């Protein structure tokens, strides 16, 4: 059993390894910082967190809500510890409190205050709140899960790394339930296949699906850190 649930202070690796996320070193051994899932195989000692708040990171795509309008610009709630500020000049039109924007983080300072860029106002639609650390699973490997739920529900979806999913059109009640299901089962393997089978977009072939489970799904949970980087390109794609 290579994958296991760890609690803060649990040993992740007794050997020296490259340090991944959510770990710390004490006496040459690697311990977990958070409640999460660790894999003792592989080059990197890291833990995928199961719970937690959004920690702003450069290059993250986020869904923000205008929380405050002042003379020079807007205070934008990005579900982080502090609100971000954007000048009025970054928008073509005046925004008002409650407007939804999608933006990218281009800088985070030592107080974890985030600077935003490429902001775009979203018209209509609604926001689904999810646990921020579990959003990678909603995107999936190379955006596979996002593609699935978008086609399955016929909605436009933008997944913000800050735990907000903006959505418009299509079957939103179904999407909400699917998103909740994925969020609640994010730490289990074989999730993408399950959702795939649920939607039935592709004809489920019992034999082929089973073979795939072992190979494609196994490493999925553990690769989330890498996925974070990879999937950035994909998580803003909208439904046609």
């Amino acid at each position: 059993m290579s994958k296991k649930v760890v609690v803060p202070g649990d040993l992740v690796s007794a050997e020296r390894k490259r340090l991944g996320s959510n770990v710390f070193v004490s006496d040459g051994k690697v311990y977990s910082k958070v409640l999460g899932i660790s894999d003792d195989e592989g080059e990197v000692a890291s833990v995928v967190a199961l719970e937690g708040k959004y920690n702003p990171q450069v290059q993250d795509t986020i869904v923000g809500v205008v929380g405050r309008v002042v003379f020079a610009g807007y205070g934008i709630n990005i579900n982080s510890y502090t609100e971000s500020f954007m000048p009025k000049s970054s928008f073509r039109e005046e925004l008002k409190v409650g407007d939804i924007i999608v933006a990218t983080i281009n800088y985070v300072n030592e107080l974890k205050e985030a600077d935003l860029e490429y902001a775009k106002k979203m018209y209509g639609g609604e926001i689904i709140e999810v646990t921020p650390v579990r959003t990678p699973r909603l995107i999936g490997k190379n955006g596979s899960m996002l593609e699935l739920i978008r086609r399955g529900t016929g909605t436009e979806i933008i997944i913000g790394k800050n735990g907000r999913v903006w959505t418009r059109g299509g079957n939103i009640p179904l999407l909400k339930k699917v998103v909740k299901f994925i969020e609640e089962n994010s730490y289990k393997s074989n999730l993408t296949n399950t959702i795939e089978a649920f939607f039935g977009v592709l004809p489920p072939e019992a034999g082929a699906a089973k073979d795939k489970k072992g190979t494609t799904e196994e490493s999925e949970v553990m690769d989330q850190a890498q996925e974070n980087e990879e999937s950035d390109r994909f998580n803003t794609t909208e439904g046609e």
Partner: protein
Amino acid sequence: MKMGKHGSEVVADYSKDKKRMDGRKGMDELRPIKIKVGVIPNADGSAYLEWGQNKVYAAVYGPREALPKHSQNPYKSVIKVSYRMATFSVPERKQPRPNRRDSEISKVLGEALQKAVFVENFPNTEISVFVEVVDANAGSRVACLTAASCALADAGIPMRDLVAATGTGKAFNEIVLDLNKDEEDAPDAVDIPLGILPQTGEIVLLQMDGVITKEEFNKALQMGIKGCKDIYKIQKSALKAKYELEELKLDSAKKAIKEEGPSQAGEEKAAKPEKAEKAEKTTKKEDKAKKVKK
């Protein structure tokens, strides 16, 4: 069995007795402990703990912006603990207003947790911990500390280690672990709440009430550290229990459809705009119609 702290009547002598007043066999035996994590949905992290007769809830919110603003520290997160006892938690009604004892315990618990949490990761924020004692029977502060550290872990807050705590001390001429109320009221009682980080053995909470010799204290401390390590195991299993369904879900597809399918089956079909789907539907309908005709 009644006796006060200054009562002349000595009802037990643990140096001769084989049993403790509540029936525990060993002097180093803990009362039964039960921990459940994630009991308060609106909190970021929460825990419920039963320790003998003690019943305690812990809820964690944050890290979030520290308010009032002057309480912010640009180098680290501030842990704000609020320890409260319900009015019905003790035989005599407790005044709900926080008293000296409440604020003191809030302070020491906060300082103990501060040692475990990576506070330097969250500048200018606060982590609010609310611990509420619903039923008290000696050792409620260690129960609260144990529950609070589970709630912090449940909130996904980065920590060096969980904090495990237990009461230890002396009662009825013997060093005992985890004193209950009867033992705490013994004429020679010494109560030592002890909290440690089990991985490193660092002591994060140590208080004492009573008169005790150095040798006795050391013995009580060793006993307490051993007890804490047992509690640590219970904490760990409680946290892991929430994610027990770790194995591959082979029939997960069916499960998922059962959970979500029946009510949404119709909606899902309606949502699919593809013409192919519609075509399928129509053919199905036709089939049905044909069947009916037949």
